[in-house]
């Protein structure tokens, strides 16, 4: 199994290298693309901060703290978007019957799909996340850093990436039955990203539970950031829960991976 995983990673790398090579042929275009993507995501971030012009805090959260929340969210989401590029357009792949081809190769269908449509422009959101993080640090000069806080932040971002990848994979799996649900999946991914750029506690308890225990997007940003900022978690959950992010992420990934495998068997192809 480890050998397979290693070979899959190598394959993924080959798929990326060749696409990067193609995209680097038009450098001017590419930088423009990255910058405009940075611009768009930067604007989203600024819009979020505008709340703090009339108000000093949001349920006790200061501007720097919310900025950190949003920054970590951008990093998790941005990484998942960069790595899982091809899943986004899965409905197109299905509609055009191109998934047929994927099934005719002796390597993982999942790796082929995510490696299918790599876009360097998506570095824009990650750049925005890093800039936003720097800004957050600027607003929080008194923040005390420890080794564990750095660790939690790191595994939080990686777990968040896995969680978002699993959500889009679930959405993609639905396409095996119908491609008319892409809007719903988009609402779930983009919506949860937007919502969880704010402190979780501003939402109704049902939603809080949903994002903690069902679709655990809170682990992509809110839970690790609370640990870093030494803020209490809702429902009296222990702060150390942040260290469990990878387990939550892996469980969620296993479940969606299993559903995906089930979906592949139901693939109906297209008539043409």
């Amino acid at each position, binding site marked *: 199994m480890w050998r397979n995983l290693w070979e899959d990673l190598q394959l993924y790398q080959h798929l990326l290298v060749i696409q990067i090579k193609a995209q680097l042929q038009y450098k001017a275009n590419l930088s423009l693309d990255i910058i405009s993507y940075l611009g768009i995501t930067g604007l989203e971030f600024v819009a979020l901060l505008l709340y703090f012009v009339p108000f000093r805090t949001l349920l006790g959260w200061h501007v720097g703290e919310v900025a950190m929340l949003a920054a970590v969210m951008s990093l998790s989401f941005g990484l998942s978007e960069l790595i899982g590029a091809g899943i986004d357009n899965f409905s197109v792949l299905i509609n055009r019957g191109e998934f*047929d081809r994927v099934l005719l190769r*002796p390597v993982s269908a999942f790796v082929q799909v995510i490696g299918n449509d790599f876009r360097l422009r998506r570095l824009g959101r990650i750049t925005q996340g890093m800039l936003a993080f720097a800004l957050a640090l600027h607003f929080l000069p008194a923040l005390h850093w420890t080794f564990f806080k750095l660790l939690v932040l790191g595994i939080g971002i990686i777990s968040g990436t896995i969680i978002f990848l699993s959500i889009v994979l679930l959405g993609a799996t639905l396409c095996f039955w119908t491609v008319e649900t892409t809007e719903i999946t988009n609402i779930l991914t983009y919506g949860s990203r937007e919502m969880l750029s704010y402190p979780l506690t501003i939402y109704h308890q049902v939603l809080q539970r949903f994002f903690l225990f069902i679709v655990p997007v809170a682990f992509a940003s809110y839970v690790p950031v609370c640990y870093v900022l030494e803020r209490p978690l809702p429902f009296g959950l222990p702060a150390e829960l942040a260290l469990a992010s990878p387990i939550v992420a892996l469980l969620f990934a296993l479940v969606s991976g299993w559903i995906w495998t089930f979906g592949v068997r139901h*693939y109906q192809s297209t008539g043409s």
Partner: protein
Amino acid sequence: MTVIIDAQALQKNFRVAKRRPGIFGGLRSIVDPEVRIVSAVQDLSLQVQRGEMVGLVGPNGAGKSTTIKMLTGILTPSGGEIRVAGLTPIHQRRELSKRIGVVFGQRTQLWWDLPLLDSLQLLRHLYRVPEARHRENLKQLRVMLDLDEFIDTPVRQLSLGQRMRGDLAAALLHEPELLYLDEPTIGLDVVAKARIREFLLALNTQRSTTVLITTHDMDDIETLCPRILIIDHGRKLYDGAVKDIRTRFGGERTLIAVLDGSELARLAMLPSAEDGLATLPDLPAGVRLLKLDGPQIELGFGREALPAHELVAWLGARYTLRDVTFREPDIEDIIRRIYEKDLLLGDIGMPV
């Protein structure tokens, strides 16, 4: 000889969901789907021996592509049994994919934005072919398919014929023992078609690759496939030699005779029928005059009407002949007649 494809009583039904507009329509379609069942393949059995080239023919929507997709493991059959190269396609799909090559004429597996060579290199990783073997195969295919002149061109700039050659190379780099071709010559010009047929024949002789090909082009069949399967509405209508189809359903053959110049005056005197075409007096039963053009006469005659040599003798007794040739009925016409009249449905003498 050993069997490479063995399919028994294949069946495929598609559930086609009715579309409802809007987001909530989409949601409703999942919870409460309104489905219609399309039966694409029904009770289809087929056996292919190693090294054979078999043509799968039938009108649009007959179920050819669906059959190929089941034989490759893309689609799960609704019923029936399949073994391909000793494997069960749907359960051993990845295993099987190392041993088969597939070309869909309507789609490409090459990357549009990359030079052809890059795609061919990338495929080494997608099929996990050892580097030395890949290099050797690529070298051979470059020669056989004459890829060198455009191997550095991005695929989107290739002509359809060049792209198809690229796709054939892509499907063969891992040396499959069985090649499925779904309409590989569609849209190609005559020269490009001829080139591809030549290549496939060479492949079949040199590597003894088994080929299953679907096509609309009867010239493909006549040059490549000694054996065809005709299917329509998902059912098998015929399975056997192409030449037997001619003898059994052949319709009319044509005798083309060129008469001696001295006969021209006599020909000009022939009486005309109402439609303006000349008539030959006392033609044997079952023989028709098709065309009269200067000294050339074309006569159509059914196989059961009389043997060809008797017709030549009949004509020779009346005119001085300079040359006689025969034209076999167009296989495309025969097959069209077979679909249109369901000639074979319920035919007890069906050779299988």
